[in-house]
């Protein structure tokens, strides 16, 4: 494998979260009955004309800002001409040479190492309809035709299918953060075309590339790339030549299949869309939009480390999830122990949510309650077992931690007198272990502490129990000897 280097670039199509379509006021709801979200404009009826959806422009600009791209002060739309039944006008309104955003980069976590991947351009276009086949005839559902589609083109800087996947995950995280797309893969919110080539390691020139179109799962991207790169290597190994062509991933056959070669590549005959005015974005407007941007995960991670003293791992995990990081911050603000809060969010909270396969909204525990829970532990009121019990109650039903502690009588036994009684009882009931301890088996102490916990139904302060046990056992010499 190491005898070859891979070069991969991705074109990612992102369905934007707008209420209406790119050029008309039809809705964008997924799953509506066929051809119920259509009008003369998105059906390409004679005489109908497109009108720009400014929200789509805003969301694309926000993405550009999040991806550190240059926002074009002057941008325009073009017609991309080709015939296909799912395309109402037989041209797609897209952007050719003046996209909304140019340049930029995204930081990608490749197995714990950060890699910077360049973004070539981000442009806006309209989606097409969907062809349906019913045996003897076919139909087209135009509900999706005209839905705003943002295309993010990466530089060919990804060196493996794993890097491509990591890039997509980073992109998805940012898109969710900025709120520009739901990134719902089942609904086709994210679709990829990938370009890839192989070359012998150290060879200066890039190999001939192939393009694999319309991959709509991240797994598909990874699998298609793995197979295609392998196929290219095998062709070269056999002494063959790679054809520049467009291929399709067949997930059932687990292989890529040729669709068309360079010879029958489309000539799209792009030209400026005369029905739309160019888009002139003035600085003030872009700045106004920029002011609404959320903090980027990378910056948030750094801030969590500096502000709350979190270890990098915690900061990274929390910052990666917008909702979780916001929850953490709200709880940390009410707490004197942010690291304690982080521990709870990172472990118990995420475990419970994962068990339920639910989002943060499933947790009934408020950030304030979380902060109080941490305080109760820090004050020694709750031991860790009881704290987990209180957490579970809060998580499932909500409420105030101190009340739950009171109602359930979960406060730790930290009272010396009460502890003495427990210590005496355990010593009396487990003389064998007492003997063992005195003979030097220190592990016996752990057992005896466990028995105190059992007798106290978990409410004993384990530290105090161990201290008192030790003192008592050392104070009284073995009577039997």
């Amino acid at each position, binding site marked *: 494998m190491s005898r070859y280097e891979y070069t991969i670039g991705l074109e990612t199509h992102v369905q934007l979260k707008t209420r209406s379509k790119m050029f008309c006021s039809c809705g964008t709801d997924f799953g509506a009955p066929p051809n119920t979200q259509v009008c*003369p404009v998105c*059906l*390409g*009826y*004679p*005489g*109908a*004309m*497109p*009108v*720009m959806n400014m929200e789509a422009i805003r969301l694309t600009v926000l993405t550009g800002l999040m991806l550190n791209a240059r926002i074009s002060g002057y941008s325009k739309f073009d*017609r991309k*001409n080709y*015939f*296909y*039944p799912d395309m*109402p*006008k*037989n*041209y797609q309104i897209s952007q050719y040479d003046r996209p909304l955003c140019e340049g930029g980069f995204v930081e990608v976590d490749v197995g714990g190492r950060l890699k910077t991947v360049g973004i070539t351009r981000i442009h806006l276009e309209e989606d097409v309809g969907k062809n349906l086949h019913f045996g003897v005839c076919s139909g*087209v559902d135009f509900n999706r035709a005209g839905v705003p589609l943002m295309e993010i083109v990466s530089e060919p800087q990804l060196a493996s299918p794993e890097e491509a996947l990591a890039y997509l995950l980073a992109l998805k995280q940012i898109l969710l953060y900025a709120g520009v797309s739901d990134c719902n893969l089942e609904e086709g919110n994210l679709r990829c075309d990938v370009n890839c080539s192989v070359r012998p390691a150290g060879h200066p020139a890039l190999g001939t590339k192939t393009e694999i179109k319309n991959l709509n799962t991240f797994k598909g991207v990874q699998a298609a790339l793995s197979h295609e790169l392998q196929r290219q290597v095998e062709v070269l190994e056999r002494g063959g030549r790679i054809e520049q062509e467009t291929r399709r991933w067949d997930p059932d056959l687990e292989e890529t299949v040729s669709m068309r070669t360079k010879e029958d590549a489309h*000539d799209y*005959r*792009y*030209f400026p869309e*005369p*029905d*739309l*005015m160019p888009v002139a974005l003035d600085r003030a407007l872009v700045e106004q939009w920029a002011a609404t941007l959320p903090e980027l995960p990378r910056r948030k991670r750094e801030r969590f480390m500096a502000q709350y003293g979190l270890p990098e791992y915690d900061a990274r995990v929390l910052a990666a999830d917008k909702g979780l990081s916001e929850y953490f911050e709200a709880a940390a603000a009410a707490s004197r122990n942010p690291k304690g809060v982080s521990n709870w969010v990172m472990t118990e909270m995420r475990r419970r949510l994962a068990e339920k396969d639910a989002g943060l909204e499933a947790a009934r525990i408020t950030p304030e309650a979380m902060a109080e829970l941490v305080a109760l532990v820090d004050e020694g009121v709750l031991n860790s077992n009881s704290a987990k019990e209180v957490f579970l109650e809060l998580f499932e039903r909500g409420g105030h931690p101190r009340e739950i502690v009171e109602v359930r009588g979960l406060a730790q036994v930290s009272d010396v007198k009460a502890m003495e009684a427990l210590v005496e009882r355990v010593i009396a009931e487990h003389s064998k272990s007492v003997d063992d301890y005195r003979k030097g088996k220190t592990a016996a102490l752990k057992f005896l502490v466990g028995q105190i916990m059992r007798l106290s139904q978990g409410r004993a302060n384990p530290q105090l129990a161990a201290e008192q046990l030790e003192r008592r056992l050392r104070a009284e010499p073995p009577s039997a000897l």
Partner: protein
Amino acid sequence: MAGDLNTLTLHEAEERLARGACSSVELVQDLLGAIRERDGLIGGYLAVNEEDALKQARAADAARARGRRGALLGLPVAIKDVLNIRGEPCTCASRILRGYVSSYDATVVARLRAAGAILLGRTNMDEFAMGSSTEHSAYQLTRNPWNPDRVPGGSSGGSAAVVAADEALAALGSDTGGSIRQPAAFCGCVGLKPTYGRVSRYGLTAFASSLDQVGPMTKDVRDAARLLKVIAGRDPMDSTSLDEPVPDYESFFAEDLSGVCLGLPQEYFVGGLDTEVEKAVQEAIRLCEKLGARIVEIRLPHTRYAIATYYIIATAEASANLARFDGVRYGYRAADPRDPMDLYTRTRAEGFGAEVKRRIIFGAYVLSSGYYDAYYACAQKVRTLIRRDFHAAFERCDAILTPVTPTAAYRIGEKTANPLQMYLGDVFTVPTNLAGICGLAVPCGFTGEGLPIGLQVLGPAMGEPQILRVGYAYERAAGWGRRKPWRSGGAGPAKEAP
């Protein structure tokens, strides 16, 4: 004058309706009478809504009786069949749109309705507005009312013919390279191509989106002003429509032209211009001077590139605009297609006429990779030069006077064999569309054979007030509009001028 209400202008009919001298129903009846009498010969209408027009007329009369007023209340208007009318076919005179019924009103149609107008019928045209003679209609021939052996011009030939033959009081046309002004000139009526963006294109089936404009075709300049006022103005459905107030154009009218400076472009008075046409236009210029206008010579040096530039840009845009006619969603569909490619190729081969195919292929060619820079990109640059020519010229004058066409109406069949010959006839009208400015065609006399000749008045962007003022003063002084091609009650077009 009962039975002759069809010969009125819009404003004359409005005045009669207002004082109760006639009803809208009578107006429609007289028009239907004229249509029944003449349209078999003229062929201007593709469809006439007899019953619906009478129903609209009755409703208008009732509304007027209740006190309602509207700029066009109860006044019938004919519509070029390139504009969408809700619930009616819109064929664009093409086979490929056979069976298509509009699900919406074009903005101009909606504005006519809102002003109370009656939609009388849909007029013939060159298929998809591609042509200068209306001979490229897939459905029928339209004849020039002044001489049935002659073409009415095009592409709005049907609209021009029905207005000239008194089968309509007024009509809407569309103008991409002269398609309102040239047929208006050939048929002896008034045609106005507004400034690009002045009138909404929403619902106008696109030929060349950066050149198309909807405009009025009328019996006199006042009617053109009145119709323009109704249809003009910003439309949120057309992003290229201008957000400028619409003035009362008639308020600029005056009987003389004092204080007006008129430019004569030397490039428009050169070889190829018919001597009778030139003489009529020169006389019109002298009359304008007599009315008080100052005449200056101007230069439009890039005029000679206009035809080439126009046919590159217009066909490029058309090649994309007409791609939607594929048999998938509406209109004509070839029988039993094997696959999508077969569906496309046969539907379009069978559905489009020869001239449309020629232009689609031409347009696809000039946009294709390897040729784009030499043709389309170059044409866009020349277009800028042509626009600058006019910009510079309008620094020196208020309006420009030229002929509308190099010749009067030619014979049916005379130019169909040689498309280039027909394209060259657009030499005086296409620069206007390339520059996005406005232009008015006004009758300025007749040839020895009795065929009308048109004077073109060009104005800068948003210069409609001044060209309408010039047109009005000239028309009033010259009086050509009183001549009719059709003798009332006669058996056909008048052979001799009355």
